[in-house]
């Protein structure tokens, strides 16, 4: 067992997650939405690491590595789409993407 109780780590994770979630919902700029998503992913990572260290197993860190990989791929694709959006709509307002084509 570690000196830091699992519940504390999970509380931190929850707070960060909620902050990220609020950011996703409130911000109109797609870039900020992506950043808030990163915050959320990070919070999830905190939860995993906390759990892994509470049970003294490495699985938590493995999960965190996979999350990291996911975040990397997602950021790459997301930024590419953002670039396309900027070119097409001349703005990054997510509400401009509310119509299906045709």
């Amino acid at each position: 067992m570690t000196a830091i109780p699992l519940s504390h780590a999970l509380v931190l994770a929850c707070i960060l997650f909620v902050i990220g979630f609020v950011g996703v919902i409130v911000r109109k700029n797609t870039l900020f939405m992506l950043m808030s998503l990163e915050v959320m992913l990070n919070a999830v990572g905190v939860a995993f690491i906390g759990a892994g260290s509470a049970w003294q197993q490495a699985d938590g860190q493995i999960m965190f590595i996979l999350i990291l990989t996911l975040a990397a791929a997602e950021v790459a694709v997301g930024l590419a789409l953002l670039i396309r959006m900027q070119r097409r709509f001349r703005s990054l307002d997510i509400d401009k993407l509310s119509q299906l084509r045709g």
Partner: protein
Amino acid sequence: MLLLALLPFYPLLSFLLLAGLGKRLSWHAATLISVGSVALSAISSAILVYQLSSSEATVISVHLWQWFSLAMGADIGFSFYLDALSAVMICVVSGVGFLIHLYAAFYMKSDENFNRFMAYMNLFIVAMLILVLADNLVLLYLGWEGVGLCSFLLIGFWYQEKANVLAARKAFIVTRVGDTAMAIGLFILFDWLGQLNIQEATQLAQQNWQVGSNQAYWIALLLLGGAVGKSAQLPLQTWLPDAMAGPTPVSALIHAATMVTAGVYLIARMHGIFLLSPEVMNYVAWVGALTLLLAGIAALAQNDIKRVLAYSTMSQIGYMMLALGAGAWSAGIFHLMTHAFFKALLFLTAGSVILALHHQQNIFKMGGLLKRLPVESSLFAIGLICLIALPGTSGFFSKEAIIAELWSSPTAGAQLWWCAIIGALVTSIYSCRLFFLAFLGESRNQSGLHLCNANRMRLPLLALALLSLFGGLIHLDFSSVFSLANRASEAVANARANEPIWLHPIAIAMPFVGIIFSWLFFSDYRSNKGQEIPYKATGFIGVCRDGVGFDWLYDWLLVKPYCLLARLNRRDVLDQVLMLNAWYARLWYGALSATQNGQLRWYAAAIGVAVMCLVGVMAL
């Protein structure tokens, strides 16, 4: 038998041809088809009457097909029943109808909707023939409704004028009230007797109900309601003067000779039930008498020639009702026949006059027509003397026959006799007023005469004039039809023997009194030298002119409250209740479509809310 079966179908075929081929038929073809079909019907009627009178049988009946069958073993079939009563009716309808069709062919020659007009006229003849030949009440009701429909179509023939359409609508609605009463009567009759075949129902009623019984009272009363509507008697008489908005041949055929007599025919046909209810017969007599006086007074105040004749028709049908109410069945039907002759003559001649004066109908703007249109004037005079019932004319025979039976009748009496006498006086006064204003004196109308087709139109008029003058000599034998009534007359015979001797002389003298009175009172009309005659339709005269206040009464009693209710219910309360359904659906549509707005952040928030709910549910 085949002749009887085919009788109404010649005009029906003609109607279908004219309706189907429409404007493609030339005037000659249309006239040939329409007038020819009615001529065929007239000839068939004549042959049938000859057959009926020369055979020993008193009835010819033919069953065409079964229409439908009701419970209790009553079958309603398309069957025709020809006895003396319907024989008279088919002769009048097809004979006078033929003459009127012939006249109308020339009268309406220049109208662009000629084919439609003749089609409707033929349809009317079909419906009327079915009405008088029907052997069961449902088929009779079919004819009844058919004539109502044709009346509507023909009054509103020139539908581009709003006034005509309103008049047609008024006619239809007022007669509808009567029709509803009659329908209720039929329903009750079927419920109580289980039969709608006329002869069998009458027999059952005679067997099962007492004289003066409650059931007979109600059935007779409801049938009277129907008759009153169709025949324009009190209280449903307001539609007839307005119905003069239709073309003159229509007024002649429907509103003088035939349709308005349908009510009289109904009562005569159902006399078996009426005899079981002396109170209703009394009502019939009083309705007739009051209508006859009211219409006579109204006719005194009119300025339109056709309206005078319309009120005159109303008044004469009042005579027929009075006759039936008093139990003088044969006299009533006889008067129906003679009235058809002279009223058709009067209307058609009035039509010729109107046409000749370029559609001028106001008698105060006529005058001096005796010199300008001698033929028409003399024909009109012949019609009027029949109407007034001067001795020797057909009108005299029929009217005297009625008046003779009033004093001693158990369901009429001295008061009604006096009503009839005063009615005769008023009839002669308004007839003379009409004649003096329109035909005597000097012309107040400066325009030239328009006389195309006048000669050919005079032929049917001459035929009708001959019938009016000598039709009284036709002997009608209704003994087989009204056999039930003859039984009752034995008690009456005693009363008749004790009548005062001054009854007959007064009745015969009345028309002459009227003529003398008019000669003196309306002297300025008959000797007018071409100056304009003032016509003040104010006060009492104004009320009389407008149907003696009945139109005003009905307007305030029925029309205005109804319109008020319609206005209040503009948003239609029931419709709003049903619209709640739509409102509810639209509410949900609004709510649900708001969730599909395409915005990513909204969807993300929704997911978050869902997760919270899930977590909340799991935590609790």
